[in-house]
């Protein structure tokens, strides 16, 4: 034992010359990236959020006055859109989970030689732009599109009404667009499950449903948490779906921020709303991750 310790120490000393600096050097590009493109803009945005218009009244010209009341003004003007964002994002996340779970399960356990092809198909939508896909979705749900035609034929939809320009279209659009973000982490966690643990559950008197409830699902929880976060977070801040598939009554917080920034040129309000959205998502996510208790797993 003594001999081993001595050798170990010596090799530490030998390598010690290089060792401490290497990890930091490797971290450097990433840290620099974060500093320039995340931390710096964030500080900038924080500064903007407490500015007020200059006396000159010139459009887009603001001065720092540390007016924190900007936040109260911002939220009181966009309370509905804020709530809607959270609700739409939640519904889209739940729908995506309901669609993705069976899909990921089938790919992980039942697809055999088709596994890789199916995974490529899940990722395939990324080969076209987000915007184009949403426009395509608008056509699918459009009055001349297949969905409306079928629903009208089945008398489930009256001839006067349609599906686009509605909350339904916005939520389904978001569900569709963020589906791969849900499917991939779910697949990854399901695929990691040793099929023999499932056999063991069957061997220990659990039928298929109980095996799923007590073994498969708990073991896939890390994927469920990752997938729901990757879907919910971008969905809550999304404005493309609401713009292309919605109507004035389905505006989300992203739409408000966008119009404040680019149309009204009200930078402080837009910045304040951005921060509020970030804070809201952060709090929700923290509560969720705590409740899900995923650190116990793995």
């Amino acid at each position, binding site marked *: 034992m003594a001999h081993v310790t001595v050798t170990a120490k010596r090799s530490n000393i030998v390598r010690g010359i290089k060792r401490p600096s290497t990890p930091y050097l490797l971290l450097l590009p990433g840290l620099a990236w974060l500093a320039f493109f995340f931390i710096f803009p964030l500080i900038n945005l924080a500064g903007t959020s407490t500015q007020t218009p200059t006396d000159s009244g010139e459009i887009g010209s603001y001065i720092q006055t540390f007016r924190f009341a900007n936040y109260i003004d911002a939220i009181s003007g966009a309370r509905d859109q804020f709530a809607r964002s959270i609700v739409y994002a939640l519904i889209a996340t739940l729908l995506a989970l309901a669609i993705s779970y069976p899909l990921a399960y089938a790919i992980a356990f039942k697809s055999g030689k088709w596994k890789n092809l199916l995974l490529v198909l899940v990722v395939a939508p990324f080969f076209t732009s987000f915007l184009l896909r949403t426009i395509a979705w608008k056509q699918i749900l459009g009055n001349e599109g297949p969905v409306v035609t079928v629903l009208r034929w089945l008398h489930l939809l009256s001839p006067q009404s349609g599906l686009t320009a509605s909350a339904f279209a916005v939520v389904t659009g978001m569900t569709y667009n963020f589906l791969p973000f849900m499917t991939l982490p779910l697949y990854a966690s399901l695929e990691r499950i040793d099929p023999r643990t499932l056999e*063991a559950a069957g*061997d220990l008197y659990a039928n298929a449903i109980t095996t799923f409830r007590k*073994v498969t699902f708990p073991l896939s929880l890390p994927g469920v948490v990752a997938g729901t976060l990757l879907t919910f977070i971008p969905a809550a801040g999304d404005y493309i779906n609401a713009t292309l598939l919605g109507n004035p009554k389905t505006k989300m917080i992203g739409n408000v921020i966008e119009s404040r920034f680019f149309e009204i040129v009200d930078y402080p309000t837009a910045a304040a709303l951005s921060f509020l959205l970030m804070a809201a998502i952060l709090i929700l996510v923290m509560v969720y991750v705590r409740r899900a208790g995923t650190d116990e797993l793995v």
Partner: protein
Amino acid sequence: MVDIAASTKGDLKLSNLTKAFGDFKAVDDLSLVIPEGSFFALLGPSGCGKTTTLRMIAGLEEPTSGKIAIGNTDITYAKPYSRPVNTVFQNYALFPHLTIFENVAFGLRRRGIKDVTEAVTKVLALVELGHLAQRKPVQLSGGQQQRIAVARAIVNRPALLLLDEPLGALDLKLRRQMQIELKWIQTEVGLTFVHVTHDQEEAMTMADTIAVMNEGRIEQMGTPVELYEAPRTVFVANFLGQSNLVKGKVVGNEGSDLQVSVHGNKINVPASRNFAKDNSEKSVLIGIRPEKISIEHAEPNSLGGGVITDISFVGVSTQFQIQMPWGQELSVFEQNDGGASHLQKGDTVTLSWKPSFTFALDGTSDVDAGTSVNPDEL
């Protein structure tokens, strides 16, 4: 459905069990009875069909034909969860998200037993791991996980406990220790254990009865002593321990012994140990275990003119490789009691042994069957 579990007891009967994967018969018309309360081993090289047999008993594989019954209850097509059978899986297959306590309690809870604490505590004490009840499986060593896998199965008091290469992942020392421990647990709980292994030493240490499997069939079944002392096929003679097999011709009878001419030497084989299929067949293989041969003492059966080509000292014994005049190499193990210490490479020696240790096998079989099929054991 689950009621079967509680009420079924008795011997395990496999009748004409066959499992085919396409054209390949993994298990071929297998019939056997495993008495209640015994420690039974299915021994064979990988691919011999032993694991498939076990999986059919567990309900994880459906037989192509044949019947599986425990006592009078037919369980051939019963779902795994409704069988009174529990399995200790090769890689243990513990539930990684549950504590050790919950792992062990899993089967009891599924059967609707409310108060599991006493049973779980008791079985954890039996495997001496009560203090780890609140840990997760990853926090345990391989040997500890192995014992939990056993505890998780036996806590359910199944009619039958299946062990699929349960010690395969452990190192040699731990494996020896677990062999003794498993045997002790079996005696303690009195359940029927069916143990699948490719390790002949493991099977011999633990099992009351061993069935040696080869190519989907049972070659021979018996106690470890029977299989070792009186192997009936070349496969068994070579797979369990080592054997010297020499071709000979039956020339007649001497009393109750069969007389065989082996390269000009007269060798006697007791008629009761003649396992050659057909006695009219004049050609036989005579067999003798290496440790039964003496280089020093003269015995009735002897083969002369051997030259020592290799000597290796292995502690309790010394192993000699001896080249016979007809070119074949035979093995001899001599006890290290001083008798054979003067022997050196190149010495010419005579090998002799008692006729009662000799056995005769079918002369048409392949002399090397069962010798080199087991590389992972080395």
